[in-house]
């Protein structure tokens, strides 16, 4: 089987030399079963060892190789070359500072992720010796899709709201906050609400839905954010009607 030669236009940026990024073209003989990441690895190994990019698992699990491929945020390991035309343009993820070539700085996301406390906050914390926190299959099914997030940042790259206002907490962090808020073993919702229910939190989202369309793991962050909006709106009215409820919420209560 003969290889197909594909022109890869790769965004290059060297912070020590370049004022602005530029595109460099490489001709790559691609196998039929190659993904874009294979072609980039070929460029690195055979054509230009100065090219910088991130990757690790090559199986859509680690979330490292998120890039913009022909204008669409995608995992380079999940994008088959055969599904693209003979010219493929590869750029770093949108909406993040470009450190070098295809590598972006994701510090902003890491800070936001931490701010929503994406870990289990149990009412009565157990030691390891006391065993696991138990949960039924039905309880797991409520939030399981949100656990699939691999922090690949395709959703932030696709989100025009984040592009226009980088104070927005953003899709993945809010989806993970919702994941723990929906977890029957967790009582940390009120501790997360300061960030989640703030203006730069869920209320900055205008439900474009691009995050869910590009998500490679079907997490559906847009759904998580809309559900959090409804729950927070319910809080607002219930607090108004039942002021004594505030006290109870501080002790930790769940959405569902």
């Amino acid at each position, binding site marked *: 089987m003969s290889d197909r030669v594909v022109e890869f236009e790769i965004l290059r940026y060297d912070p020590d030399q370049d004022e602005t990024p530029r595109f460099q073209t490489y001709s790559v003989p691609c196998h039929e079963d190659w993904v874009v990441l294979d072609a980039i690895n070929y460029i690195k190994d055979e054509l230009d060892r100065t090219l910088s990019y991130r990757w690790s698992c090559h199986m859509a699990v680690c979330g490292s190789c998120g890039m913009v491929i022909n204008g669409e945020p995608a995992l380079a390991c999940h994008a088959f070359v055969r599904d693209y035309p003979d010219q493929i343009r590869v750029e770093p993820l949108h909406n993040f*500072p470009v450190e070098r070539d295809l590598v972006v700085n994701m510090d902003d996301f890491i800070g936001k992720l931490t701010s929503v406390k994406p870990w289990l906050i149990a009412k009565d914390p157990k030691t390891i010796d006391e065993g696991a926190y138990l949960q039924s299959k039905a309880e797991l099914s409520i939030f399981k899709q949100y656990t699939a997030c691999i922090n690949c940042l395709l959703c932030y790259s696709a989100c025009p709201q984040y592009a226009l206002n980088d104070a927005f907490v953003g899709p993945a962090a809010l989806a993970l906050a919702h994941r723990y808020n929906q977890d029957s073993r967790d009582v940390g919702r009120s501790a997360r609400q300061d960030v989640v229910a703030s203006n730069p939190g869920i209320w900055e989202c205008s439900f*474009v839905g691009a995050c869910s369309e590009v998500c490679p793991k079907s997490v559906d962050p847009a759904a998580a954010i809309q559900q959090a909006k409804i729950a927070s709106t319910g809080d607002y009215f219930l607090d108004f009607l039942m002021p004594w409820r505030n006290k109870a919420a501080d002790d930790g209560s769940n959405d569902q």
Partner: protein
Amino acid sequence: MSGPYIRPVSRTGWWLTQPRYVRYMMREISSLFIGGYMLIMITGLYRLSQGPQEYAAFLAALLGPAGVAYTLVTFVFAAYHTYTWFIVTPKAMPLVFAGKRVPGSVIVAAHWVGFAVISVALWLLMTAQGV
């Protein structure tokens, strides 16, 4: 030495860069046309309160070329708004029935059925009243 490069984002033209952003803007802009139609309805009520001749003049204006054109455009936008709104309802309101997630397609279909039933009921009510 330039440091990390921050790519500029057009604050006015961003929505033209992706078809999905254009679809989103169309969904949002549809509200303006529907809002405008509400103003026409309120004007109609006001003209009705003024008397039969004033109301007849309002109806005549509404049936003029501009009125018909605006109504048609609003109808298309309202249909698009309804279509997009029904599609997103399972995201905002996931249902669990007997311990299982109700499929999104069922929730969307239920909305269309409800929409059809209410439309037919209103139609019957209006024809019974001779409107």
